């Protein structure tokens, strides 16, 4: 790795000499670079107004943009609903580009956030004073914002330490905690914050945003591809945008179809699921074994398989309520076991033999 890094750094030093004289070429370069920006970043809301669908929080933030005070914030909700984007946009609007560095501290799960860091880094930052006037003389909010993204991965101890800092520095510092599950934030912190739930984005909102991006990027998508995007993203706009960009990368100029999207999203083809359900009717362990083995060889994700099997079982006409409940009970166990790292083949076999049992021998 040393050499790997060295080549880079040596270039860094030579470049210092180069960059200044040829500043004209650097603008061209940056244009090139822009092409490579991932769309999730490119289409991240720039201002609070751009944030779609989360009206409640937008209203509160806009008030603070007009000069009123800001409470401590707790954003929670599923991934890709705009939590990080919202606070970043608000921060940028509140403080402008220049003051951003001195007024905003952003810490996320990738940073060290143990108890000692909370005590030192956060505390030191919180204790710095913040005036209500910008260097250019314009007014700005007299506080700093500490953003703790992905806060649900902080330990309880670190959170407790945070709570004390929060209390002490309430004059000059506002906190914004972001997490997926509000239950992972300790009660004393949660109760000190204004809580906002970020709802999974509604289908029409997702679709509008995706269409907008398609227009900007000049790519063509068949209508059903949008349906596929909504289908596979579960209200997660990040996922939908990533899938869209991946599909366009794969296809070049060609029209993106629904199959492209399903393929990229790792969805198991419907025929495969049908076939699995069909062999569950055969009452033959060997046939089942062969079918499942085939799918493991194909590399389909075990989690994805059981999710799709679940969707079929729940709406099945031939199975009674009791049979369905026995199968779903097993399905829940298998889901948990897979998360724990159990073997995919064994778990799927356990699920499918249960289904087979329920289909072929339910009365026994």
């Amino acid at each position, binding site marked *: 790795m040393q050499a790997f890094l060295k080549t880079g750094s040596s270039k860094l030093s030579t470049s210092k000499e180069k960059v200044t004289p040829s500043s004209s070429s650097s603008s061209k370069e940056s244009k090139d670079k822009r092409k490579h920006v991932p769309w999730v970043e490119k289409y991240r809301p720039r201002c609070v107004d751009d944030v779609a669908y989360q009206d409640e929080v937008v209203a509160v933030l806009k008030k603070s943009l007009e000069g009123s005070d800001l409470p401590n914030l707790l954003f929670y909700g599923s991934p890709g609903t705009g939590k990080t984007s919202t606070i970043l946009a608000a921060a940028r609007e509140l403080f402008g580009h220049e003051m951003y560095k001195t007024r905003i501290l952003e810490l996320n799960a990738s940073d060290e956030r143990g108890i000692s860091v909370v005590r030192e880094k956060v505390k030191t930052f919180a204790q710095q004073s913040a005036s209500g006037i910008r260097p250019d003389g314009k007014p700005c909010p007299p506080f700093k914002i500490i953003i703790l993204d992905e806060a649900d991965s902080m330990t309880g101890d670190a959170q407790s330490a945070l709570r004390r800092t929060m209390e002490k520095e309430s004059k000059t510092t506002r906190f914004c905690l972001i997490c997926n599950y509000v239950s992972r934030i300790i009660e004393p912190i949660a109760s000190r914050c204004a809580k906002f739930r970020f709802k999974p984005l509604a289908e029409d909102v997702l679709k509008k945003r995706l269409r907008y991006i398609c227009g900007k990027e000049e790519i063509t998508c068949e209508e059903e591809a949008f349906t596929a995007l909504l289908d596979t993203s579960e209200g997660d706009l990040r996922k939908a945008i990533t899938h869209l960009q991946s599909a366009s990368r794969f296809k070049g100029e060609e029209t993106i179809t629904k199959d492209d999207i399903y393929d990229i999203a790792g969805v198991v083809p419907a025929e495969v699921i049908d076939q699995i359900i069909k062999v569950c009717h055969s009452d033959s362990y060997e046939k089942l074994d062969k079918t499942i083995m085939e799918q493991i060889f194909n590399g389909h994700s075990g989690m994805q398989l059981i999710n799709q099997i679940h969707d079929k079982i729940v709406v099945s006409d031939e199975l009674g309520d009791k049979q369905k409940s026995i199968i779903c009970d097993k399905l829940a166990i298998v889901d948990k076991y897979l998360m724990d790292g*159990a073997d995919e083949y064994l778990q799927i076999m*356990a699920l499918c033999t249960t289904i087979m049992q329920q289909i072929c021998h339910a009365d026994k």
Partner: protein
Amino acid sequence: MSLWVDKHRPTSLNKLDYHKDQASRLKMLVQSGDFPHLLVYGPSGSGKKTRIMCLLRELYGSGVEKLRIEQNSFTTPSNKKIEISTISSNYHIEVNPSDAGNSDRVVIQELIKTVAQVNQLETSTQKEFKVVVLTEVDRLTKDAQHALRRTMEKYMATCRLILCCNSTSKVIPAIHSRCLGIRVAAPTIEEISQILQSTCKKEGLNLPLELAKKIAVKSNRNLRRALLMCEACRVQQYPFSPDQEVAEPDWELYLKETAGMIVQQQSPKRLLEVRARLYELLTHCIPPDVIMKGLLQELITNCDGQLKTEVVQNAAFFEHRLQLGQKAIYHLEAFVAKFMAIYKRFFEEGIADLF
């Protein structure tokens, strides 16, 4: 002299022998000079690594093949030193973060931060980003996976990640949704047979199709294994003959014998003997889940329909406990004991029914 597996490894996307559609899509992907973070997944021996290297070569040229192996040390916040080895070229670096055990989070963060901060500036000939290849990401701690989330967004400008794993079930959805997933299915028996034949041709050897098929089947659709087996056959006997014996690894035979012993007799004494053999396998570094599945496969053939379901359910139960627990032997032994009980009961009931 290098092994056939390494010697005849394809080095460009054009030369990949199977999943050609995917290869051409990958080519399309990097043609713009850029790509998103990738999550490459599929069973072992399906050719993930080869595909990744071809992709890098397409992107950076033959410079990525000049590899260095280096030892790196990292210091955790609690001042623990961790040594870890990496493989790198001027353009990419590969690391297996699970080598760092519970400190994997620190290692990944340090690594990516350092890589991301060192810019490449000769943009005319090179890309603006370097690539970090992380293998076995399904073995990363949850802590490390969570830490990756924002890092992946933050350093996107200077660094791309290629994550590689067997099973995506263990990768948290947040990471999944930041990557383009690339599924690499195991090659089919036919595909493997063909590759074996063409490899032999390159070696100036003639491999009968029948033998190629036989090896492919025995390899369990694992191409790496198939090539190794094929080379072993060559050492054993040349010219090849179609009905030539394809040697299985010793431990597989040993495992089969062990299963046979379990079916033969169900008693505490036998359980003790089996335990000793399981220990033997574990000390030879055969992964416990492989042992469990191997046993299951053999035991099942001696069971009747309903019994099969019960046995596989138990295997799934004990293998899960094995993943969570510390000592694999407890759970393997528990499974064997359970099987003995079920099997014996079944036979006794069967005999009782006769009278």
